[in-house]
């Protein structure tokens, strides 16, 4: 009995290792936050370690005075809200029929939605096609192109399949049509899964950068990620020119990063509650 209480060197090392790993994962964010609040006039910010040097909100005031950041934020909010709504509508409407074993042609439709996971037209033909649709330089190109994520669709289908057939049959006997069954029986039973998928979609929209750079040219239509990317680049160029900028560009950059990340941090606790389940609902069996 007494031996059980003894803490082995392995346990000590293991805890120490994870403390170290935890610090490596989180410190960069703390560093950015610290930097963004530090006083830009102190020239020696390279000595930042644990606590801001001075404290000022000037980097944030400067950031919010930039019109492009504001439009970027609003564009990203629009994309995330409307995009996720479209995602959920289309995914539910596709996943439910695909989850019905008896649907004639089910195997064909499943193959039809899975094949694009294996093979795609690629960047160039997709770009040219979106151009032909007249969607280039419009936020709708992103909402359209990202309307269904096959992986999320499959997770949702799997979940709908796990709903007992007897419940659905019972609803049918009570005279519920397929659509009513979906709305009144299936959806209320799937709240947690729907929340998981919606969060995945929302984060995907918020973080989306690649397609925005490809499809959107006008800077007033840029989502926040593209704006941030350009601030990072522009700042680098400014530094090469001279010290003529009124704001220390690095502080401005760090404040922009914090603004970009805050919505993710806000939903992170909810995400964390659901994502393990979400990942395991996916096809990989544990």
């Amino acid at each position, binding site marked *: 009995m007494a031996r059980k209480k003894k803490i082995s060197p*392995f346990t000590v090392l*293991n805890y120490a*290792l*994870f403390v170290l*790993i*935890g610090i*490596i*994962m*989180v410190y*960069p964010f703390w*560093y950015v936050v610290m*930097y963004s609040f530090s006083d830009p006039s102190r020239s020696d*910010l*390279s000595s930042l370690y644990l606590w801001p040097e001075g404290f000022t909100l000037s980097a944030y005031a400067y950031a919010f005075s930039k019109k492009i950041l504001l439009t970027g934020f609003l564009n990203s909010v629009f994309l995330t809200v409307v995009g996720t709504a479209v995602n959920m509508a*289309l*995914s539910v*409407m*596709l996943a439910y*029929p695909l989850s*019905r074993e008896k*649907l*004639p*042609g089910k*195997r*064909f*439709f499943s193959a039809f939605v899975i094949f*694009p996971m*294996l*093979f*795609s*037209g*690629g*960047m*160039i*033909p997709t*770009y*040219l096609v*979106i151009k*032909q649709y007249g969607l280039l330089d419009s936020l709708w190109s992103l909402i*359209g192109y990202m*309307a269904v994520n096959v*992986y999320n669709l*499959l997770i949702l289908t799997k979940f709908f399949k796990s709903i007992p057939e007897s419940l659905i049959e019972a609803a049918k006997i009570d005279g519920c049509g397929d659509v009513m069954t979906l709305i009144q029986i299936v959806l209320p039973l799937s709240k947690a899964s729907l929340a998981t998928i919606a969060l995945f979609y929302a*984060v995907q929209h918020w973080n989306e*950068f690649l397609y925005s750079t*490809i499809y959107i040219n006008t800077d007033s239509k840029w989502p926040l990620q593209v704006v*941030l*990317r350009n601030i*990072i680049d522009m700042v*680098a160029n400014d530094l090469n020119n001279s010290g003529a900028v009124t704001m220390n560009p690095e502080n401005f*950059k760090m404040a922009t990063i914090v603004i*970009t*990340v805050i919505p993710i941090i806000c939903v992170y606790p909810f*995400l964390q509650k659901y*994502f*393990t389940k979400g990942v*395991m609902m996916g*096809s*990989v*069996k544990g």
Partner: protein
Amino acid sequence: MAAGVKTVRGAAPNRTLWKTIKGYKALYLLMVPGLLYFILFRYVPMFGLVIAFKDYDIFKGIWESEWVGLQNFRDLIDSPDFWNVMKNTLVISFVKILIGFPIPILLAILLNEIRHVRFKKVIQTCIYLPHFLSWVVISGIMLNLFSPVFGLAGTFFRTFGLEPVNIMAQKGTIFWVVIFSDIWKEAGWSTIVFLAALTQVDMNLYEAAKMDGANKIQQMIHITIPAISSIIIVMLILRIGKIMNAGFEQILVLQNPVTRESIDIFDTYVYREGLQMGSYSFAATVDTFKSVIALILVTSANKISKLFGEEGLV
């Protein structure tokens, strides 16, 4: 609808089949918007790949441009850039797997040994976080941290009396920056699958091993790893199936004109040649080449993983 016919059991007369289908009318109608999406945004671009066999003319469009046969593919083989991006894509993917694949397994096994529930939760919160941040954000953080002028890296070099170098702007070091930043971002997240597999391991085995005097390391080697070996193999196969994707977004934001050549991969090359330079046909040819190889790899990976009794990702 031809495939629909096959799934109905027995040789039902056509009228009955029609009746069955009509019974599902509402479900078919529900699928229409989603299927339309797949046709418009996924299947039509596949046909757009024909421009790999054409000389794309902006004014004539995809369908009217002139056919050039395999000319684009000949240009491809003659292009030194092509062989460079091919080499980079394979090497970056390979090293990412070689170093990045075992780390989450090790982390999961070690994390599984931690009995303090609160501590474990806090650590999980920390290590999953980077997965949810975009590469743009991460590159912004890295550019500052690793800057020899104002970043921590500069301080680090000066403390040890070394000449500060910018590891993100040098040909020799950018490769490792790509590898390790990817591990930093995804290693924690990748533990989830293995952690879940570990909860299935029979605890009695450990008790028995303890009786026989096995220490922690021996228990890991002889019980834990064999118990999760099938999931390890499946994850590895699926990862290898995606070897043609070496990390488009990551490399796009991390490369600069100096480091470009040493980390240029298929996707960044296609992006630059096609969308920035306007050589649509040539870029699409490179993409076709990549897609076909990826298709072969992914389908084989799924076939093989099914042999191990696990479902693939698709």
